[in-house]
């Protein structure tokens, strides 16, 4: 140690303590510990980094100064990350040091973590109507890639039919991931949802899976799930349904309509948007060893203990995982997104059955309302006639990118540009009727429609009492 650097994160940095420890190990200096690193590889100077902000007050001011440049806005953005309400109790629970800073403890000492994740899986399983749900993986991209890989392995086949409009980022990940084993074939949708006849025509005994996304990338809810399942099963394939559980209080879960593997993201269930960094993926299947043994994730199970009536927990079928098998495993297991799983569990425990029903209704109603008032603007039309949850595509009379820029100047994010004239608009339970009316007014103004833009209301004003 050339110069002593004393810091609150470094308890043993005082010179006298270091000397005592070095003496205990019989070393002259820490240099001895680096004996195996060749001199040519040793860094001679300091790393090229800014001066440290050792005073916490200075660090806080610096970081807050940067983050203060962000602005939240009235937003109609979705496309994978959604602005739903995060109940305070969720943040409280995942902020607890015991959960936040735990890692890979054993079932006895980390009983609480095992139980919380078992409960998460159990709660989500009720929503999905499946019996097996994994400890979360990274995000819906990974979950979908893994789900399709599972289908490939379970069937020993290599063709995958893509029956829905799927998100571009998910598609990109899946393509690169399954490249060594399988290939994707896209079946164009009709009026926003699957073309059952076209899918059926392409099915054969070399098809591992049909991939359905519901809601799709445009927010369309698939209505022909049962027919797709029947057709897929008829050739021995598996139906993989990618979904967002947020609507399942009111919508029939894919598994109840024949989907073999359900996968997707839980960001909607109590996780903040985090600039797109708050995602976690789930994979759910029936309790069928053929599929369960293909899951690469950790699964936490409930077991009895030596005390009558007491619940213990542990890893289910540990031998499936790459922890046990390195390259012989199905995939890998690593630090993924357990805390978001706990968050989603707390969310579902708070929402309960009635909460999920009411939320589903609010989402459907506000989506329908937004479609109605926005397509009432002259020149604005909707891209399809499907049932939509949360998102839908508008066809605009002006280039969508221009419209979006002009509304940003009014601190409104109007939606995601999907095509030259196509705008993907998203509403959630956080988007009130007043918010939607405001968008309609401002969009109308931007499109040159005569509206009563004089009654301009400030954005993000408080809820009317």
């Amino acid at each position, binding site marked *: 140690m050339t110069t002593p650097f004393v810091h609150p*994160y*470094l*308890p*043993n940095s005082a010179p006298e303590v270091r000397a005592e420890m*070095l003496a*205990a190990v019989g*070393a002259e200096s*820490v240099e001895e510990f680096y004996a*195996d*690193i*060749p001199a040519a590889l040793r860094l001679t100077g300091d790393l090229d*980094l800014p001066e*440290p*902000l050792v005073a916490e007050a200075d*660090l806080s001011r610096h970081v807050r100064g*940067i983050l*203060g440049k962000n602005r939240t806005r009235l937003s109609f953005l979705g496309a994978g*990350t959604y602005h739903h309400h995060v109940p305070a109790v969720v943040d409280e629970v995942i902020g*607890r040091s015991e*959960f*936040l*800073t*735990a*890692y890979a*403890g054993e079932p006895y000492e*980390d*009983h609480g973590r095992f139980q919380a994740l*078992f409960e998460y899986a159990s709660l989500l399983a*009720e929503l999905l109507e499946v019996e097996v749900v994994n400890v979360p993986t*990274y*995000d819906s991209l*990974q979950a979908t890639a893994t789900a399709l890989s599972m289908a490939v392995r379970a069937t020993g086949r290599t063709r995958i039919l893509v029956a829905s409009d799927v998100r571009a980022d998910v598609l990109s990940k899946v*393509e*690169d991931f399954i490249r060594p084993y399988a290939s994707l074939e896209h079946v164009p949708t009709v009026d926003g949802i699957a073309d059952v006849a076209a899918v059926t025509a392409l099915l054969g005994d070399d098809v591992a899976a049909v991939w359905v996304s519901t809601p799709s990338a445009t927010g369309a*809810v698939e*209505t022909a799930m049962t027919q797709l399942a029947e057709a897929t099963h008829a050739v021995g394939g598996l139906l993989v349904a990618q979904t967002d559980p947020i609507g399942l209080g009111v*919508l*029939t879960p894919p598994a109840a309509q024949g989907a073999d593997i359900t996968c997707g993201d839980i960001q909607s269930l109590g996780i*903040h*948007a985090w*600039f797109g960094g708050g*995602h976690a993926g789930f994979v759910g299947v029936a*309790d069928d060893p053929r599929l369960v043994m293909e899951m690469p994730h950790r699964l936490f199970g409930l*077991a*009895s*203990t030596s005390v009558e009536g*007491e*619940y*213990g927990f542990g890893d289910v079928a540990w*031998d499936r995982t790459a922890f046990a*098998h390195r390259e012989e495993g199905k995939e890998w297991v690593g*630090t993924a997104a357990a805390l978001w799983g706990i968050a989603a569990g707390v969310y579902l425990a708070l929402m*309960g*059955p*009635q909460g999920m029903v009411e939320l*589903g209704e609010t989402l*459907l109603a506000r989506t*329908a309302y937004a479609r*109605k008032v926005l397509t009432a603007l002259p020149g604005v039309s909707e891209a399809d006639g499907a049932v939509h949850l949360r998102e839908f595509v508008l066809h605009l009379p002006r280039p969508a990118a221009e419209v979006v820029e002009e509304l940003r100047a009014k601190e409104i*994010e109007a939606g995601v540009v999907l095509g030259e004239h196509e705008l993907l608009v998203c509403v959630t339970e956080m988007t009130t009727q007043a918010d939607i009316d405001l968008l309609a007014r401002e969009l109308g103004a931007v499109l040159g429609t005569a509206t009563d833009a004089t009654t301009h209301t400030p954005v993000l004003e408080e809820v009317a009492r």
Partner: protein
Amino acid sequence: WDEPIVFELDAPGERGVLPPQVEPGVRETVGDVLADLPESLRRPAPPTLPRIGQARVLRHYLRLSQENLGADLNVDVGQGTCTMKYAPKVNDQLVADPGLRDVHPLQGEESVQGALEILWRTEQALTAISGMDRVSLHSTGGSSAIWTNVAMIRAYHASRGEAEQRDEVITTIFSHPSNAAAAAVAGYKVITIHPDADGYPDLDALRAALSERTAAIMVTNPEDTGIYNPRIVDWVEAAHAVGALASYDQANANGILGITRARDAGFDVCHFNLHKTFGTPHGSGGPGAGANGVAEHMAPFLPGPMVERDGDRFRLAAGGELSIGAVSAFYGVIPTIAKAYAWIAALGAPGLRAVAETAVLNNNYLMSKILAIPGASAPYATGRRRVEQVRYSWQELYEDTGITSEEIGVRAADYGTHYWTSHHPYVVPQPFTLEPTESYSMAELDEYAAILAQVAHEARTDPEMVRTAPHNQTVHHTHHDDLDDPDRWAVTWRGYLRKYPDAPQHRRP
């Protein structure tokens, strides 16, 4: 606490949180949206979630949290290779800023300059620390970053028309298992090198394995044993000599921050685990975050989009034609990245070097204490110093007493601390891996060593006490065999109720 399963708290009529309701004006306009759903889409009955009041839900999870042993609570040196260090609370609080938490990834760039600046600054810092030319923060964890490395390697060879030819990846047995696993998932045949007679990675064995079929070597250094490969440059050069790439798993970088850099050893790609080395909390197993560093010739393969600086402004630039595409939703695990940034900002260059030196000092100090316990040993490279952690063995104790490393772990937890055997496979017999990091004081290391010494002593004097542990934990000996039997496992409550229809259903008194 003897806290029931959340479903057992069900009480009709109770509500945990109420969502916003449909406004009268909306309802008037759209009618009854549920009744209008097609029959097939209308869920026939609400999901069977439990009904619980808000305070009771909170109480449930608070009690569960108290039945958990976070790194904040215990001397968490037992999870060696995982770099359990102090995750500063100030970073958690700074990052919880609504200006970061509630922004959407597709907002106009002018409204998210702060988020982009954090990404850019973090990339710059990691570029300096690794010496690489470019850093991407898209990977969502350590293993995810290894996947990104192998995906870039695959894309690199494909761009040169060698995708078919190069179908092998070489790793070492003491590199993290995810290197082997990710390479296999990417379609590669995996060749694993074992240590040489001195316990170091075997250069001759590597040379024998390399060929024009080799796509890459993927190695961890220091390895999970804590041993630094002194001939790492020779390894990289040997790989390059046959046209293969060299990928550096820097999960164990904590002991070498500011001491040596990936680029200096010639690596083409490398990665860091931000949640390990850069002090972000482990979140009960994630979210973590990975950073991929690449040399210039690998930059075209990075996932997109990347942050670019334009004077005082920051913007996102889409990935190029050769990019491997999306490896995760949007731009990576922002909260973890921001915490890592704050950690680096607090320490700077002198701080990172002090972190490395202190971690290594702590590790060797603890090693001297552990090796003084009868029955403990540190196989390989005997007598040499270790860098970041040490893989120890209780083989001698096991031979003397029949007590396994796993049993010792369960008993150690009775003393309020965490202990972990090691990654499979158990090449080192009866293994355990300790990594004290820089976060624990001498007194705490002494305390940890004393607990292991005590348990080892019990193994000799009262083996039954060790074998029948746990004695002092929230739960008792669990029948783990049930969990390996498809007929008996229960992965969800739903499954449990079906398989055990006669099980006692607790309801509070």
